[in-house]
């Protein structure tokens, strides 16, 4: 399977989502089955993790408050990235910052060092991060910041630039700001801020709250994908995909590529199963390419 995007081609419509991948998880998968592996968000300086516990299984979803724990851009480029490149997958690098300058500096360092690496196909901008210059409110809530930073990044990077939006703020405002800034794809969307208490009514996360992922996020982001799809752009769905039905639902709602995150923890082989089902369905529908498949699925959705 090959999928032509505006700046590159991918081998599959499946994207592994930021913060949910490791070399051990990739060892279960074949590079041909995965379009893009988006690595954990990096920032300019190393970032400490949040206090324990950092994760909780709700049964119908998962809460995490890992925070933007990472080694910082320089350590990432020199120590972490080489280990991933050995594995033969295509990658996206997710970046974030706590100020305009930080964001731009991370993008600059990454763009410079990955310029000639063929397996790095995209930068992903994670705007679910507090802007310390604006009193700590998230970049995602400020379309003018999304627009400014996206255009700064796209000026210096030749590959795909994807913007990952937040499910909390206005979808169309975020998407328009990103596209206007030159984004080639929109990831819809990040986790939803939430909390939970255990049986003794203690907060289950050390940080007090975190992001909701997994099946509970699917109906929320399915609607967000539907909203975003009113604008012509590449949409990468994110949230709760753990079955072929979920994959197809996002396609029907307007997604072009589909992300998988939390479900990898329970079943790292899930992407292989989804690709198999997709191939056999394409065969039975007698469609030759993924773009033809998209049209067929969406036509069926409209007929209903």
């Amino acid at each position, binding site marked *: 399977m090959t999928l032509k995007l505006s700046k590159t081609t991918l081998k599959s419509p499946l994207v592994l989502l930021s913060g949910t991948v490791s070399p051990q998880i990739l060892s279960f998968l074949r590079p041909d089955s995965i379009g893009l592996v988006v690595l954990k968000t990096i920032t300019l300086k190393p970032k400490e993790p949040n206090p324990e*516990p950092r994760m909780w299984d709700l*049964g119908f979803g998962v809460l995490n408050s890992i925070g933007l*724990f990472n080694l910082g851009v320089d350590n990432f480029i020199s120590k972490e990235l080489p280990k991933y490149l050995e594995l033969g997958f295509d990658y996206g690098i997710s970046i974030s910052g706590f100020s305009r300058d930080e964001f731009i500096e991370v993008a600059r360092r990454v763009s410079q060092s990955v310029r000639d690496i063929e397996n790095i196909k995209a930068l992903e901008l994670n705007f679910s991060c507090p802007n310390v210059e604006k009193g700590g409110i998230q970049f995602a809530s400020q379309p003018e910041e999304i627009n400014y930073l996206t255009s700064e990044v796209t000026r210096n990077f030749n590959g795909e630039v994807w913007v990952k939006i937040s499910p909390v703020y206005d979808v169309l405002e975020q998407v328009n700001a990103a596209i206007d800034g030159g984004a080639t794809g929109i990831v819809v969307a990040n986790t939803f801020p939430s909390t939970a208490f255990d049986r003794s009514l203690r907060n289950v996360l050390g940080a007090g709250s975190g992001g909701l992922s997994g099946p509970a996020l699917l109906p929320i982001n399915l609607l967000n994908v539907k909203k975003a799809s009113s604008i012509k752009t590449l949409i990468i769905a994110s949230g709760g995909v753990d079955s072929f039905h979920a994959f197809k639902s996002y396609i029907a709602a307007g997604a072009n590529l589909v992300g998988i995150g939390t479900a990898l923890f329970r079943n790292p082989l899930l992407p292989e199963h989804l690709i198999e089902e997709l191939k056999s369905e394409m065969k039975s529908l007698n469609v030759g390419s993924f773009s033809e498949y998209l049209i067929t699925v969406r036509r069926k959705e409209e007929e209903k």
Partner: protein
Amino acid sequence: MNDLKPVLTDAKVVKLQGVAKGIFELLLKPEIEMPEPQPFQFVSLHYGSFQLRRPFSVAGFKEGLLRVVFKIKGRMTEELASLRIGEKISLMGPLGSAFDYSKYKRVLAVAGGIGIAPFLYFFSKEVNSRDISLIYGVKTLEEAWYEEIFTDLKGFLLVTEDGSSNYYGYPVDYIIQVSSYFNPDAVVVVGPQAMLESLIPVTFQLNVPFFVSLEPYMGCSLGACGSCLVKLSDGTYVKACTEGPVFDLKRLSMGGVQK
């Protein structure tokens, strides 16, 4: 990290029985053969309608059968306790790094509660190759059980918090006393967080390496999610699921063993 890639497979319940109050022994036959685990490695299980797998120590591995000993703690362990013979659950393993104890010939094993689980496998593999003494602590006698293999150890002390055995208190309270005649060249401790914290003063009194097995919440057990990050004494972090679960206590910052 263990070089062997873990298998992900369904496994059939061959045996499930209560061994002590709230504690069950589960024997599983993996459908795909599992590579032989090293002592202190673990597996992750999934059963029922949960999003995440749960980590459990390898408590035994013989002729392709995996033994897990678990305590009912919450939702999935409640469901595991009601499994029926022949039912299938999902198994992934072996996970974690092998703990290299090869140079220690006199090992003092200190287990708190269900922390006995990984030692059962360790004893079965090592009882003939090195001298091992066990201090096993539980809340009350009903929560302890006895395994044949304990008789082959060089020493065995059962400590209860309520004094229902001959030794009253916590297992850590007895480390100095037992060491005075057993002379261990390493102490290995597996138990709840509070027990690991109470260990710190003892390490100042005894000049041998202390190893602890950490059990932070593990979301993926495959180094991806970051829920199990542990702080080292140099301020950096490692993932307990891939670099551990066993660590030399000296390598950990106090933060690493604190909640």
